[in-house]
């Protein structure tokens, strides 16, 4: 642990200790200053961008909520935020691509010092701003009159880097009232999050060969399948770990942040999977893309049984999700395929609703489950490997003679990962081990602490993947 990290930890501890003793406004200002201090430490430019977007949306909120033409201001606000997001995502992507092409041609132009890195948390706070403006327009949330509170809504440190994407209606009222910090719940979530990140996600993702994500290291179907399982589990624990740490830190400060995951691998359909994976993004897309699209189509066809009414909303929603992840072809294809499959699910559901698990024979349930897993794996391969490698792997699936079995032992790490999921399932919606007696629970926490210590010190901890989106 570096001196800077220890200093940041000490400062965080001090903020947690001091916050309950402060009146509302100084406390919120302290949190705001802490949040901006971290962004400034990363990059002053990122802090300026965050402040500019915040100021613009604060003003737009007033115009949407109190002007005579709220619709126009809402359109302007949404356009502004989407433009900011696309500008950085697309410009960063194309500048890097152009620099790569120049390097391949031997021109060696570099990025020309443009430095178009995606500002920290931009993909998340921009969506928060859009939800705020729309909710103000819908009268679901009042206009925020306190600039410091609004700035904190946008920049609250625990959720800044990778969410959860909070709604103003749920977050801002928490800033107005003083709540006691929940040390045990917060500490438990932080330990769980660190365990997921450091003990499960990092070793799982670290076991993948170099070049795996670029698709170049994937040569055979069994290797790719094993790698996909490892990657899926690693990605899940990486992001769920981040969310647990964010929510735990929020609880230490007396702020409840949204859940992002609800045992997604126990889902039965893709639609259900998406209601359990990155829930704050999924619900954002549902409320601001899917439902408006569905409402518009239902207005045109009130029966709601047309193919367009069933297919277009999920397609639009998943394409939006793909675009949010990045302008690369793999994410757009992934979003399109997922939207198409979900549209199929929706059409099937319109004609024959899904019954309880016992309603179908066992064989049919197994077949349906296998099909679902195959689809998830296929979609995941596009997301993780890119389109050409995913196609190569899919073709290799029908050529068993060329199969090579994976030599990695990292699959063993799936055992504790699945055990944790089962414990989470049993404790749902609480924390795993929460209902255990004190002795076993203390032993579990001690083992987790020891594992976190050893794993975190044995290799550089990888950055959270979703910070990059």
């Amino acid at each position, binding site marked *: 642990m570096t001196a800077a990290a220890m200093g940041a930890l000490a400062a965080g501890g001090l903020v947690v200790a001091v916050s309950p003793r402060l009146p509302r406004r100084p406390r919120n200002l302290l949190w705001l200053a802490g949040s901006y201090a971290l962004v400034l430490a990363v990059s002053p430019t990122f802090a300026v961008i965050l402040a500019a977007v915040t100021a613009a949306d604060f003003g737009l909120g007033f115009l949407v909520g109190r002007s005579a033409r709220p619709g126009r201001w809402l359109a302007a606000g949404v356009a502004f935020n989407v433009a900011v997001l696309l500008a950085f995502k697309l410009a960063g992507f194309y500048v890097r691509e152009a620099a790569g092409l120049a390097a391949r041609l031997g021109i060696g132009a570099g990025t020309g010092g443009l430095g178009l890195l995606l500002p920290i948390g931009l993909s998340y706070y921009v969506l928060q701003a859009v939800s705020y403006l729309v909710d103000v327009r819908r009268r679901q949330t009042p206009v925020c009159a306190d600039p410091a509170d609004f700035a904190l809504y946008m920049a609250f440190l625990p959720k800044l880097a990778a969410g959860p994407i909070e709604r103003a209606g749920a977050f801002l009222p928490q800033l107005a009232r003083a709540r006691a910090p*929940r040390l045990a*719940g917060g500490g438990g979530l932080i*330990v769980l999050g660190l365990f997921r990140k450091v003990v499960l996600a990092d070793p799982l993702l670290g076991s993948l060969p170099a070049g795996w994500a670029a698709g170049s290291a994937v040569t055979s179907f069994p290797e790719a399948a094993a790698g996909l399982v490892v990657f899926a589990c690693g990605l899940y624990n990486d992001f769920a770990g981040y969310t647990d740490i964010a929510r735990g830190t929020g609880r230490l400060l007396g702020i409840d942040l949204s859940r992002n995951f609800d045992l997604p691998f126990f889902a039965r359909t893709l639609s259900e999977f998406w209601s359990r994976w990155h829930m704050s993004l999924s619900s954002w897309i549902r409320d601001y893309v899917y439902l408006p699209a569905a409402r518009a189509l239902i207005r045109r066809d009130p029966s709601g049984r047309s193919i367009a009414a069933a297919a277009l909303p999920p397609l639009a929603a998943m394409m939006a999700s793909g675009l949010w992840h990045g302008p690369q072809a793999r994410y757009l294809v992934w979003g399109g395929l997922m939207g198409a499959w979900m549209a199929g699910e929706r059409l099937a559901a319109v004609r024959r609703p899904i019954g309880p698990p016992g309603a179908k024979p066992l064989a049919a349930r197994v077949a349906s489950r296998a099909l679902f897993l195959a689809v998830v794996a296929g979609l995941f391969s596009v997301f993780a490997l890119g389109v050409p490698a995913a196609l190569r792997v899919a073709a290799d699936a029908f050529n068993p003679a060329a199969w090579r079995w994976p*030599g990695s032992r990292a699959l*063993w790490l799936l055992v504790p990962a699945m055990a944790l999921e089962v414990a989470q399932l049993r404790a749902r919606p609480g924390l795993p081990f*929460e*209902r255990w*007696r004190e002795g076993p629970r203390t032993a579990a926490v001690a083992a987790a602490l020891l594992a976190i210590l050893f794993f975190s010190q044995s290799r550089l901890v990888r950055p959270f993947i979703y910070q990059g989106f």
Partner: protein
Amino acid sequence: MSRGEGKDPGAEGRPRPRRFGPARQTASAIVLAAAALLAAEAAARVPAVSSRLPLPSRGIAHPSLDLRVELADRWARSGPAECVILGPSSTGAAVRPAVISAAFRESAGRGLRAFDFGVAGMALPGASALGRVIVERYRPGLLVVGVFPYHVMRNAALDADDLILSDPWVRQRLGHSSLRGWMADRLVSFRAFLGARQWLEKPTEYAARARAAANLEPTGDRVSDAPVAEENGAGPGTPGPAREPLVAAPDMFRDFERLLDLGSGTTLVLVEALVRPGSHGRFARGGPEYRRILDDLAAAARRRGVPFLRPGPRRFGEPALWRDRNHMNRRGAELYSRWLGGRLASLVRDGRIPDPAQASK
């Protein structure tokens, strides 16, 4: 973990487990974790247990250095650390401690307990840092450092120093403490864990390390003529094949001066790290320039009273003594080591350096 979180309707009617305050539970968990760590540490130090654990590691990104440190620790525990020979892989490949000891015995009447600490791709800053680590850790009577003109050329592709100088364990030994460095240095259980983690996550790299370890004697000597790359994994290399001309770097002479400052109870001797004669094409004026830079290095050493042993350009020129342009084969290493052992014995006999056996006590 928490009070009142996650209400489960089905749990009503069941007796709820007793709840303790978060502070007490956290304290209990920390005490229990510390006790478990102590137990693991004690177990890992039992030979019957440690022999069954994966090959330990300090997590040093330079695979050959990671192996050498582990071997050197065992070597130093098993007897007096009379002589450590540090240098790039060309020195490591040319040194056979058993032969040096035998040659030393012929002249001095007793053997010299030596260890081969060759580290691939090591330049002078790395040698200086590792030299300090070796002196402080093993207190050898004699530290022999292999040096060659590549060490003061800017683009010689000796690229291990970043790995050496940024490593937490090396930095810990040099006084820049960190939690990771401390754990790698002090906890046997952590070193076993690092080995186990590599076994689990990177089985191919672990297997290569295990093969390399099996190819090393307890004195750091190689059992066979396996390529140096085998020990080094995909890590740094030695001076690359002739491409662009080498550029002399005056500031690197300062690194050389720092190397001469090691001192503190250990006698320093420099020895020419040999590369195959005739392979000096990257030096602007070939062999003459190579020898001129060697002369400069030797003169600088002489000014500080540090012996610089040079075998002369033709002594080991025969192609049959070389595995490749930078590394001697075992036959070449035998001849070189015999020469080096004899020269070290002469230095002791002539009183130019103290007897390593006396100094290491």
